[in-house]
C-alpha cells in the first residue's frame, strides 16, 4: 500500500508537479515571464498545513496578501500566474477566495487530504484566537483594550493588501484590456460600492472574452494575439 502510494502521486490521478510548467509552455502567451523563476517545490501534506497555518495566523485584515506571500514568494509552491488563476477561480465561487484557493491548491497537491489539511491550517489559528476573544467579550462585555494597536496594524495591513495587488499586476504583465477590467472592478467596488457578486457577474464574462480573443480563440482574430 505504502509503495503504491509512493509510486502514484497522492493528488490528482497521474498528477506530477512538472505539468505546471508543461501547460505554461503550451501557452506561451499566458506565460510572459521570460526570466525563468526559481524552481517550484512540491509541498508535503505537513508543509501544506503549516504554510496555511502561517497564512491564517498572520492574516490580519484579510489573508489575501499573506496567502500570495507564503505560496508564491516564500515556499514557491506555485508560479505567480498559476496562483493568480486559482485565486481567480476562487473569486467567482461563493466563499472567501483564499479559502476556495486553499481547497483547490490542497487538492492539486494531495487530493482530499491536501484540501482538508490546507483548509484546517488556514482556519485553525484564527478560530483559537476568536474563541479567546469571545470568552473575553462574554466575561467583560467589551473588547480588550487593544484598539490603538489594532488600528495601526490595520493600516499596515491595508497597505499590504494594496501593495500585493500592485505587485501581482506588475509581475503578471497584464494586457491593456485586462488592466482596464482590473481598474473597473476596483472602482466599482471601492468608489461605487457595488455588490461584489454583481461586479463578478458583469466583468468576468467580458474579461474572459477579452482573454480568449487575445489567445486567438474568439472572433477568428488569430492575428490579434501577436
Amino acid at each position, binding site marked *: 500500500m505504502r509503495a503504491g502510494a509512493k509510486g502514484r502521486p497522492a493528488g490528482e490521478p497521474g498528477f506530477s508537479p512538472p505539468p505546471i510548467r508543461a501547460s505554461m509552455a503550451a501557452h506561451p502567451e499566458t506565460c510572459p515571464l521570460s526570466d525563468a523563476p526559481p524552481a517550484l517545490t512540491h509541498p508535503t501534506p505537513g508543509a501544506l498545513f503549516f504554510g496555511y497555518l502561517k497564512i491564517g495566523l498572520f492574516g490580519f485584515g484579510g489573508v489575501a496578501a499573506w496567502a500570495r506571500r507564503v505560496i508564491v514568494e516564500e515556499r514557491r509552491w506555485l508560479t505567480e500566474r498559476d496562483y493568480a488563476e486559482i485565486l481567480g477561480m476562487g473569486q467567482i465561487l461563493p466563499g472567501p477566495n483564499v479559502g476556495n484557493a486553499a481547497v483547490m491548491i490542497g487538492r492539486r497537491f494531495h487530493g482530499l487530504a491536501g484540501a482538508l489539511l490546507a483548509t484546517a491550517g488556514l482556519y485553525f489559528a484564527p478560530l483559537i484566537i476568536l474563541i479567546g476573544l469571545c470568552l473575553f467579550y462574554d466575561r467583560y462585555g467589551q473588547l480588550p483594550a487593544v484598539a490603538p494597536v489594532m488600528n*495601526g496594524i490595520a493600516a499596515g495591513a491595508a497597505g499590504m493588501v494594496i501593495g500585493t495587488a500592485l505587485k501581482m499586476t506588475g509581475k503578471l504583465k497584464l494586457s491593456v484590456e485586462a488592466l482596464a477590467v482590473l481598474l473597473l472592478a476596483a472602482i466599482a467596488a471601492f468608489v461605487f460600492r457595488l455588490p461584489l457578486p454583481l461586479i*463578478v457577474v458583469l466583468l468576468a464574462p467580458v474579461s474572459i472574452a477579452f482573454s480568449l480573443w487575445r489567445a486567438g480563440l474568439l472572433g477568428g482574430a488569430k492575428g490579434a494575439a501577436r
Partner: protein
Amino acid sequence: MTLVLQILLTFSILSLVAVGGANAVLPEMHRQLVELRGWMDDATFSQLYALAQAAPGPNILVASVMGWQVAGVSGMAAATLGMLVPAAVLAWGMAGLAWRLRGAPWLKPAQGGLVPVAIGLILAAGLTMAQASYSHGLWPLLVVAVSTIFVWRTDYNPLWVLAGGGVLGAVLLQ
C-alpha cells in the same frame, strides 16, 4: 428544529450566496440574524463584527463569532461549518472540473480572464481598509503608504510594517 440545526442551515445558505467573501454577504447576514430570526440586536451585531476584525484570518470567520453569540460553542461550530463546507465543496468541484478540462486550449485563457477581476477586488479591499483607518487621523495614511511601497517594491517580510503600524498606533493613540 433545534437551534444548532437552524444555525447550520442559515449559514449554509449564506455560504452559497457569499460570492466575494464576508463583506459581500454581511448585509444578508444582518438581515437573517437580526431582522428575520431576531437572534441578536443591531448593536450586538456591530460589536461582534468588530470583535471578528480583531482576529487574524479570513473575514468570513465573522460567522463563527455570530454563532457563538447565538448558541455558545456548538453554535460557533455550526456557524463555522455551515459557512465553510458548502463553499469548500463547490471549490473542490471547480478544481476537479479544471483538472478534467486541462487539455482544452481555452481553459488557461479563460482562467486568465478571471485574474484581473480578482486583483481588482483585492485592490478595492485594500483601499476600503485604508479608508477605514483614515477615520483615526492622518498618521494611518502614512502607515498605509509606507506599507504599500514596502510590499509592492520589496520582498522583505511584511511583518515589519504590521509591527511598525501597531507600535505607532499604541504610541500615538494612547
